[in-house]
């Protein structure tokens, strides 16, 4: 396989967070009863006309500025003509020759810490189609036009990725960025962020690209990885078997883990693009541009740099904490609640992250708030509890047993024992039963000390201050 080079480019459909549709006043909220969010415009009633939702343009500009792209201050909407039941007008309004955003790119970080700049070709505004429903009626299909006209930003990369891992890293970075910018809710289950992946392979060293196949509509990073892996293997096998790759659009089946061709280039449609005469050119004024620039949030790169310099976090931790907006907001909220930044980072990337992963929750859904976590960390800092007890406190907060670290500590009596007399008493009791360990320690086996400390901690139900325990034992055995 090493003699093959993989070439990947992505087209991502990002649903923008406007309250109403891109060309009508209908709501974009997800999950309403079928066709209750479809106006005469969305239903393509005769005589109905589209009117541009400025909010969608602002979000596209925000994205363009964030990735250092060229903003076309005059972009053109075009009609993409084809017949399909979920496309009521018989054409989709999109941007073709002159998109609102051109060029730019973003930096991805791979697992090994290396970074790569992914160049973007363009990002253009378009409307989403409706949804065909095939399982609700006997012998007929239904069409739900609630989604028709939902604003999308289609973000297209150059074919610059060279592995599935890079593609996933890019998709994740983009996902983080659009949420950062608050232009997309990032909800992949609801289809707010969907990727089409163009994959081709070529012999290492060959300049020309191989023939590509496009895997459509991937809405999870896991499926994307599986789909790319399968597709790459399949293409290499085909070529090694002496077969030619035919340009095609393929679908990934998560049940079989395979990709399957939907249509090939031979039956590719002629979309008869032409500028939409119902919509004047989309103009981004200087004033609008200046306003959006002013309102730009601090972006991941800048945040990462600030975390390393201001909070002395490691580059790796800083990157992880700044990668997505919700995570960085959580981190900054905890720090704002006076918790030690390094401890917050450790807890977030350790205990919190593990708990979230275990229960498949996003950080926004974390049962332990940043403020609560800061409370736990504060009690470690002032030696009220040990690190180990802190984990118990965290678990209690996670399961909702109490509202604050202090409440848990109080209710469960977890306050650390720092009283020398009390600790000495426990130490004496343990030492009285530990002749063997004492002998080992005195003969130079350091491990024996750890064993004694463990026994003392256990006897104190974990509440004894470990540092003090250590010190007192050493003193008594010296």
């Amino acid at each position, binding site marked *: 396989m090493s003699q093959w080079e993989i070439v990947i480019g992505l087209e991502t459909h990002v649903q923008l967070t406007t309250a109403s549709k891109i060309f009508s006043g209908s709501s974009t909220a997800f999950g309403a009863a079928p066709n209750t969010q479809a106006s005469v415009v969305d239903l393509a009633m005769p005589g109905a006309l*589209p009117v541009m939702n400025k909010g969608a343009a602002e979000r596209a500009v925000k994205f363009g500025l964030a990735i250092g792209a060229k903003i076309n201050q005059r972009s053109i909407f075009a009609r993409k003509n084809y017949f399909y039941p979920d496309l009521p007008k018989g054409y989709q309004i999109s941007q073709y020759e002159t998109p609102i955003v051109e060029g730019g790119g973003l930096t991805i970080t791979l697992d090994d810490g290396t970074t790569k700049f992914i160049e973007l070709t363009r990002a253009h505004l378009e409307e989403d189609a409706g949804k065909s429903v095939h399982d609700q009626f006997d012998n007929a299909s239904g069409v739900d036009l609630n989604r028709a006209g939902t604003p999308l930003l289609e973000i297209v990369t150059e074919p610059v990725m060279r592995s599935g891992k890079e593609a996933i890293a890019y998709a994740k970075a983009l996902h983080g960025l659009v949420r950062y910018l608050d232009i997309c809710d990032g909800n992949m289950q609801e289809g707010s962020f969907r990727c089409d992946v163009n994959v081709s392979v070529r012999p290492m060293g060959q300049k020309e690209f191989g023939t590509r196949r496009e895997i459509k509509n991937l809405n999870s990073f896991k499926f994307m990885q599986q789909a790319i892996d399968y597709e790459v293997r399949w293409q290499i096998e085909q070529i090694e078997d002496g077969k030619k790759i035919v340009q095609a659009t393929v679908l990934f089946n998560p049940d079989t883990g395979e990709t399957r061709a939907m249509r090939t280039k031979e039956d590719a449609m002629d979309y008869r*693009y032409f500028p939409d005469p119902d919509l004047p050119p989309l103009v981004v004024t200087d004033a609008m541009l200046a306003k959006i620039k002013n309102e730009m949030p601090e972006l991941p790169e800048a945040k990462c740099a600030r975390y390393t310099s201001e909070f002395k976090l490691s580059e790796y931790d800083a990157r992880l904490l700044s990668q997505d907006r919700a995570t960085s907001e959580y981190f900054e909220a905890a720090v704002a609640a006076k918790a030690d930044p390094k401890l917050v980072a450790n807890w977030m990337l350790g205990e919190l992250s593990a708990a979230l992963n275990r229960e498949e929750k996003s950080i926004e859904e974390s049962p332990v708030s940043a403020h609560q976590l800061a409370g736990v960390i504060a009690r470690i800092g002032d030696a009220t509890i040990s690190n180990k007890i802190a984990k118990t406190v965290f678990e209690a907060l996670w399961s909702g047993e109490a509202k604050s670290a202090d409440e848990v500590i109080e209710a469960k009596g977890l306050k650390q024992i720092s009283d020398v007399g009390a600790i000495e008493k426990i130490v004496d009791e343990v030492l009285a039963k530990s002749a063997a360990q004492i002998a080992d320690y005195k003969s130079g086996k350091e491990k024996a000390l750890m064993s004694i400390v463990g026994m003392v901690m256990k006897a104190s139900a974990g509440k004894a201050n470990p540092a003090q325990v250590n010190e007192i034992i050493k003193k008594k055995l010296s």
Partner: protein
Amino acid sequence: MSWNTFTTVAETKKALDSKQVSAVELAQHYLSRALSLNKSLNAFITIDSERTISEAQAQDNRRSKGDVAPLLGVPIAHKDIYLIDGWRTTCGSKMLENFIAPYTSTVVQNMANAGMVTLGKLNMDEFAMGSSNETSYFGPVKNPWDLSRVPGGSSGGSAASVAAGLTPASTGTDTGGSIRQPAMFCNLTGLKPTYGICSRYGIIAFASSLDQAGPFAQTAEDCALLLNAMAGFDPHDATSLDRPKEDYTRDLAKPLKGLRIGLPKEFFGEGVASGIAKAVEDALDVYRKLGATTVEVSLPNVKYSVPAYYVVAPAEASSNLSRFDGARFGHRAKEYDDIIDMYKRSRAEGFGAEVKRRILIGTYVLSHGYYDAYYLQAGKLRRLIAEDFKKAYEVCDVVMGPTAPEGAFQFGAKSDDPVKMYLNDIFTICANLTGQPAMSHPCGVDKDTGQFVGMHIIGNYLDEARMLNAAHQYQLATEWHKAHPAL
């Protein structure tokens, strides 16, 4: 009573304002005329007397409550391309034979706000594609002056209904001459305003970049009053011009001294019937007597209007008409194998021959590899034609010429030859391509054929008030617009 069937909008308004007649009485009068004469003229597709009378009653009620809306109680009939909530809206097509509009177009709403009462929906060429009203699924409209002749198109019903006194005024739409040419054929005044003056929202689209709503009436003064009611910025139409309201009657009384009329030599060359050329010359003499001066101008690229139009209009139409797929509304074939078959059969059954022809042309010119050669080139021609006019306006204020190269023709005379039919719009199309305002007013008769001649006035953008002033002054000095057919 001081009003009669052929009382103008301006006089009808006065009769209403002075309570000589009520909206209900007017509605009843025109409805009964329409119901009896429509059998021979076929100008209306839909009449709904009950609805009309209740509208009229509502406008009378407004008046009794002290409302002083400008056209309170004046009847109007609408081309069946305008959606009106609850009214059947067919666009002259089998495709929409049973389509009940779920909302009201902005122009109709504006006119209702101004107090106007809808008398019914007027016959038209199918989807406004035609110059003779022969493509209507509901049968051709007859010219009230001569039932063997066409009324012009596509707004044939709009012209015939006003000419026959079935309504004091009507609305039309003009994509390539569909208001002005029928106005000439039926001896009326018709105005296509500057693109963007009247909202297109709720008007079934033919060619979006060319379509414009406008009024038909007996006089220029009436057209000004009607345009006052129709026009206005509409947030539902992104191509609607966002500008303050204006009073199109404001300059009607101005003397024409100093008006510079440009006469493009391209409008007076071969192809124009000599009887028409003569009538236009005579009308220009009237204008000169009223103080206007004439100057020859040249519009060298205007000869490309027809080819450019027959690329742009079908291209846009082919896309605009895609929504008529039988899925959500309109005609659906009774039997079909699958979704594609449903589309094919529904459209094959629902559309007439001319509509299909234009969809085919439009689909072709937008196809991959042809777009650059046709659509893009046509776009360039539109700019060149606009440049020609811009240059002409350096030496003139308005441009005049005949509205059409020949007058109302016999049914069937051109229906077998689309190109011949298309050439009837040779002078009107340029104003749609550029978006300029243009109008036609009666200016005599072609002595050779006995058919009416229209004076075509093309003005600079937003110069409607000046054009209406010119036509009004001409009408004060002439009687052509006062002729009515014997029915």
